[in-house]
């Protein structure tokens, strides 16, 4: 697909048709839905399961839903879940092994087709990053590979940024450029509720042909691009990405790391909600008679002391060292490791930090006082 083709238009009531077509093609459809006061991702059976007319207000350490007057299907900003949950699950049994060395069952046979609905541009980038880390290295992760194999990505552009979004700074949004099967822009006009549709792949083309659609007219195309330009303008949070890697590398002993550590709970929430944090821990469980053992893999966090435990003790004992390690990885060492930052600017780590630590503010502090070195107490 060249992406140069003229966008299409579907009416909002035909969104349900997309969903049923996906199901007919054998996909399990995952998408946004409201639960426990938040927009989370789970199986959605019809458009009625979507957060219709729901928006949200976010701040550092704060998230509340609000009612919208317009009946938008995608009028919310990313919530506490990310697609990582389905591609790189929080808990996986890797295998069961018996005492004679026989492996009884290995990695789940995930012959499943998953369709993700409402993937935001920043999330598309997060999936690209996970692909790079978990698929494209020397040792691809079989769990991720099996789950990633047949994923339909239905993206939705962000016409309204959230209070903690900074995707424009990270160059990942608010408009999706690539990596989707279909990409929608929601248009709420007096004359009707519709979606401008960009087709990214043959799979996407097939799907869109299963519902009533027409070519978008110039007004509709212009409106969509206006909305996205406005969204970019309205995004308040920013991070200066130029020179950021070097700034961080030369400020390893900056006093601000200790200042953040006074607030940081080392609870690990930021890493759990981050759509790209991929670290796991592996542990064995045995039965009482040592006849069977199971190997389990679980999401882990570099904010735990045990995470860096090696012979003799943890190498990142202080919370300060752990926060620095995490931020440095997201914004600096990730670039050296995988070619892009590990941060996509979704703002989840800001919203879901119980004490509201704001990565954009912390980086700003270091930039403002570039070169300061903490006084070492002997």
């Amino acid at each position: 697909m060249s992406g140069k083709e003229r966008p299409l238009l579907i009416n909002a009531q035909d969104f349900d048709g997309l969903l049923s077509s996906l199901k007919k093609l054998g996909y399990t459809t995952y998408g946004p839905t409201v639960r426990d006061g938040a927009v989370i991702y789970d199986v959605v059976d019809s458009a009625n399961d979507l957060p219709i007319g729901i928006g949200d207000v976010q701040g550092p350490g704060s998230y509340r839903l609000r009612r919208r007057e317009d009946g938008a299907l995608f009028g919310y900003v990313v919530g506490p879940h990310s697609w990582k949950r389905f591609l790189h699950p929080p808990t996986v049994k890797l295998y069961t092994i018996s005492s004679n060395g026989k492996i009884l069952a290995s990695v789940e046979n995930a012959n499943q087709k998953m369709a993700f609905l409402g993937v935001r541009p920043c999330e598309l980038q997060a999936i690209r990053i996970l692909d790079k880390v978990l698929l494209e290295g020397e040792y691809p992760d079989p769990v991720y590979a099996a789950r990633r194999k047949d994923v339909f990505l239905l993206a939705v552009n962000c016409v309204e940024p959230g209070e903690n979004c900074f995707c424009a700074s990270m160059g990942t949004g608010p408009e999706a450029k690539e990596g989707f099967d279909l990409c929608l822009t929601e248009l709420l006009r007096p004359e009707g509720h519709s979606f401008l549709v960009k087709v990214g792949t043959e799979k996407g083309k097939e799907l869109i042909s299963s519902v009533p659609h027409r070519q978008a007219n110039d007004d509709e195309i212009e409106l969509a691009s206006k909305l996205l330009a406005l969204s970019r303008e309205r995004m308040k949070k920013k991070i200066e990405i130029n020179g950021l890697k070097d700034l961080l590398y030369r400020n390893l002993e900056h006093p601000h790391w200790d200042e953040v550590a006074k607030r940081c709970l080392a609870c690990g929430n930021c890493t759990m909600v981050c759509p790209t944090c991929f670290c796991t821990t592996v542990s064995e469980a045995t039965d009482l008679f040592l006849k069977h053992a199971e190997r389990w893999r679980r999401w882990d966090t570099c904010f735990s002391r045990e995470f860096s435990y090696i012979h003799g003790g943890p190498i990142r004992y202080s919370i300060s060292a752990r926060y620095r390690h995490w931020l440095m990885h997201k914004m600096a060492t990730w670039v050296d490791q995988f070619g892009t930052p590990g941060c996509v600017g979704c703002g989840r780590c800001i919203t879901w930090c119980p004490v509201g630590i704001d990565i954009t503010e912390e980086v700003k502090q270091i930039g403002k006082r570039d070169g300061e070195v903490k006084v070492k107490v002997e």
Partner: protein
Amino acid sequence: MMKDGRPKLAVFKFSSCDGCQLSILNLEDELLEIGQRVTIAYFLEASRATVDGPYDVGLVEGSISTPHEKELIKDIRRRCRTLIAIGACATAGGIQALRNWKDVKEFIGVVYAKPEYIETLEKATPVSEHVKVDFELRGCPVNKYQILEVLTAFLAGRKPDIPSYSVCVECKRKGTVCVVVSRGMACLGPVTQAGCGAICPSYGRGCYGCFGPMESPNVESLAERFLQLGVSRRDAALMFKGFTGWAEPFRKAGEVLEG
């Protein structure tokens, strides 16, 4: 060890509600296997038939709160090769440690008709303050699967897989929506050790801290956050001074909040 080679397991109770012992009995699907793997030599909650020590593994529930218990725990330590403290009482003093901030003599005078019959210590304290403990399993009550894991690990001679990170990690793995962030509720999860499976937040309530302080609890920062959320200093202090309130970081946080 028994003649048939099975290690001897003993379960002892001190000042406690018996809930942790019940957690062992709640291992319904696994109890028969446990009985095959070890001799349940002393476990009065389950059976009055006992086998004399020494014991290979001793599980101790409850805090030390009387002069008698203070002596008894030393004796039990001598009779157990491996001694494991189980539950909030045995590892932090438990709910009865709330008296540690008050005058226990006054309580006795108010509660008992004949206070002179009551012999008690001024403070209820964890087992580790009295004897060397080989492992502490947290919880009020303990998680039965963690009990099984600890037992299995000790029998196999390996380290038990008991994480010391926060309850938040369990909440997020489950996909539970954070009650602090989405409801402005006070929750001890960020400073509390995982292990319960994040039960309370899953039901829309803040964590009560039953599993005690996690490995590096930043209680000052969380206390500050509670105040920002509109919790009074007294209520915030009472949150920390709960089921594991005598554990040092929580004790200090409570005391600082009360001023």
